[in-house]
């Protein structure tokens, strides 16, 4: 297929849509959590307010790498989001929505942020980055094993994976690979940095980790980046395990359910220590992932 400027605009639109969607849903979730805790909770658009407020403030900067890292982070994440298909028929770059792009282009953003955080010269930031990277090392491996299984079955294009699940006779991978679904969801929790695995933010412990030196527009941009990252990660789960979506509403529905479930689970959990995160992920999720991959690939039992 030929790539025109239109594709880029569509991609940008998807990224923007993702931002809006996730920010709204995050606000809604704050409301839901507030209700759970017998509070009124904030307004559903509170997240927007926060972000725009941050963008309007006068920030401090610790040198060019501090700013450049933020730009690279946001740019990388926007670029990643531009590849994300919304439904099985709607995406920006056709069949180029290769799964690995998401994992590795996401990493550019992460790297940018880590770089910027370390560039601030605050030790908390470095510690936070260290924890973030360690957590990443923990959740990524079981997740990738499951992804291997899925890609082996359905190819590595996200659209392709959706279409495979939507085809008659095929189940969602959540059902087809039940253990894989569990592992995928646990890994998603790790990716989102939700509570048991929220070690790298830990506001009371390391003063919000990588974010410690940010305020104003840099923090605002990181918030945007974070929202789009969450959008990418949850969408990945939706597309990989929940059969994707045939139209945008189903996508939003599935998206909302997945995110809310993750959020609810996180709200009844405490926080792991960082080495506990690693040992946790390398114990059960990895074993389950291996078992699942073995069953699916060598025995061919895919429901």
């Amino acid at each position: 297929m030929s790539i025109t400027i239109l594709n880029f605009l569509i991609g940008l639109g998807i990224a923007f849509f993702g931002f809006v969607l996730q920010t709204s849903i995050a606000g809604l979730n704050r409301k839901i959590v507030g209700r759970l805790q017998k509070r009124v909770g904030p307004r559903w658009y509170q997240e927007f307010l926060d972000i725009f407020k941050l963008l309007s403030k006068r920030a401090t900067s610790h040198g060019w790498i501090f700013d450049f890292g933020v730009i690279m982070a946001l740019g990388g994440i926007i670029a990643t989001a531009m590849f994300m298909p919304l439904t099985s028929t709607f995406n920006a770059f056709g069949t180029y929505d290769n799964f690995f792009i998401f994992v590795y282009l996401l990493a550019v953003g992460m790297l940018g942020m880590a770089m910027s955080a370390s560039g601030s010269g605050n030790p908390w930031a470095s510690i936070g980055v260290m924890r973030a990277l360690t957590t990443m090392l923990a959740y990524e491996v079981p997740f990738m094993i499951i992804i291997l299984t899925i890609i082996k079955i359905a190819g590595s294009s996200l659209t392709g994976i959706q279409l495979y699940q939507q085809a008659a006779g095929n189940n969602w991978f959540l059902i087809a690979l039940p253990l894989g679904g569990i592992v995928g969801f646990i890994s998603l929790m790790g990716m989102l940095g939700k509570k048991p695995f929220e070690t790298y933010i830990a506001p009371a412990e390391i003063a919000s980790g990588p974010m410690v030196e940010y305020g104003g527009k840099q923090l605002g941009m990181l918030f945007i980046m974070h929202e789009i990252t969450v959008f990418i990660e949850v969408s990945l789960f939706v597309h990989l395990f929940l059969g994707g979506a045939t139209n945008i509403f189903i996508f939003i529905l599935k998206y909302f359910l997945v995110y809310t479930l993750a959020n609810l689970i996180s709200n009844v959990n405490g926080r792991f220590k960082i080495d506990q995160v690693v040992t946790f992920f390398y114990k059960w999720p990895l074993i389950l992932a291996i078992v699942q991959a073995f069953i699916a690939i060598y025995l061919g039992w895919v429901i």
Partner: protein
Amino acid sequence: MANIELLLLFLLASGIVSYFLTKWKSFVGSVFTIFSTMFVFASLAMYGFSGQLDTTVNVIPVLSFAQTNIGFYFAIIIVFVYLMVSFFHPYFVGEYKYKNSYNVMFLLSLAGVIGTFFADNFIQLFFAFEFIVWTSMLLIPMGKSKKAAVSYYGFSAAGSFAMLFGILVMRSVSGSFDIDLGLASLAGGQATLVFVMFLVAAFSKLGAFPFHIWLPEAHGNAPHPFSPVLSGALVKLGAFVAVFAILRIMPSTPLIDFANSNLPHIPLGQYAVVILGSLSIVFGTLMAIKEDDAKKLLAYSSMSHGGYILVAFGIMTSQAVAGGFYHILAHALASAGAFMAIAAVAKQTGTTKMSELGGMIHKMPITYIVYLVAIISMAGIPPMGGFISKWLIFQAVIDKGMIFVAIAVFFGSIGSFLYVFRPLAALFLGQELREYKVKVKEAPFLMLLPMLIITALNVYTGVIPSAILNFTNGMLVDLGLAPVSITMWDIVGTTGTLNPALIALVFGFGVVIAFIIFIVLKKSKKVTLMETYTAGNFVHDEQLLHYTKDFYAPLERLYIKYTTIMKEFYETLAVKVKEIGRFGKYLFMNKFIGTTILWIIAILLFLLVGEVL
């Protein structure tokens, strides 16, 4: 026409010339070295890509050469790294104890490199191989540690002697040292033996799992400008041997077939290679994560990347092999870039210990960018070369459904984020330490130039890989594998299509958007690095706000006690040999005349008894 033999003679001659030039003025000698290397690179590059290197001129009667695609591919990469590194010489060589011989050994080892990759028989290959070993071995002790050369030599010798053993076995089968003839003649048990021997050679040169001890020692302690050569270039000799061992010999070893048709049909040897490669990846990654010396860290990363190359070759599908070949290039560029950046820092600060450095970015921003691009490529993140090769390798791993290999491969890939970030954070970023605030400045232009070229190539290989993949396709055809299907922009894998240029473009687009957002917003207030959140405490010592020591301490705690196993194994081995030696001295070399007499009598009695019975 560039003639290989004349190039070799040219290098030998210029080695001698550079000795005297360096003796006269080290700067002049080093510049001469640059030009010699450049001449060699230029003549290879000018004629090599079209396969027009002349191998017919026969000045030295016993030598004969042949140009193969694979050999040329390796040669051009390694010579390129040599060329880039030679730009560092004017600034470094003068400091070394034997500066005259530094340039000589450098040029001689380059001659060895060319001899290796254009050899058409195994004897010449072995000759050049050993030649590289000792010339480079003599360079290493000019750096920090004297012991490093010993372990480098030990493992290299183990490897090359194993290869010699294999060569001799092969010769006994085929009756000649010719490479193609020899490889074609192998079958059955002999093939397995030769395969194992070549594999030992490949592993020990590549610094893969059981033979990795020398890698951090040698890379970490070698002279700063030689570390990039070791890691970016000479380690690739192992990959070259691995091509022989895995891609050309292994297919003729006996196959192990599983009854279940779902299981992968690969020779057992292949699985061993892949598993050992995986172990290298995991070991290299874990060791790199806990390393404090930046150069040693990169050395362990070389080990891990060697594992990727082995895994790629071991899988043996055309995609994997293409990935392996591409990875050789990508890693050569990335690790050369990273090592050169570290060398530039070390030149300014005199140390490579990350716990003693910090904030170099403020004084050396270009070096920082070079390092950044290099590690992005190393970690396999788009849009750099490493991503393409890793993508191809992942495709192959997934296609073969190798779960445990996948664990290693993905672990190494994610782990590489951890360890490459370490120098980035501790060495370049973080607080700008007081002792470096004044005297440190950006590296001189002659040093920046090669680094920038490498950076540009890192990006080029990640954005427009089709030209290089076309070349590797030629190599795949030579090896009897189907070429990977590529178009101008796309790489088509078994499970998906990749368009690296598009990724780069989108990434650029994203960054532009982000930059626009950044620029329209209110300008931020500049503050110094020391003005950070310290919970209200007044801290005036940069060292206290600089988090570098035991960076990944919580993670290290989980495996720290297992990290010395292999090292202890080899140390124990050395001690055992020493003990045998001491025991031998005790048995045979004591001051009692009686013992000798006793041995004589014992042997005679043994024989007589054997004769009578």
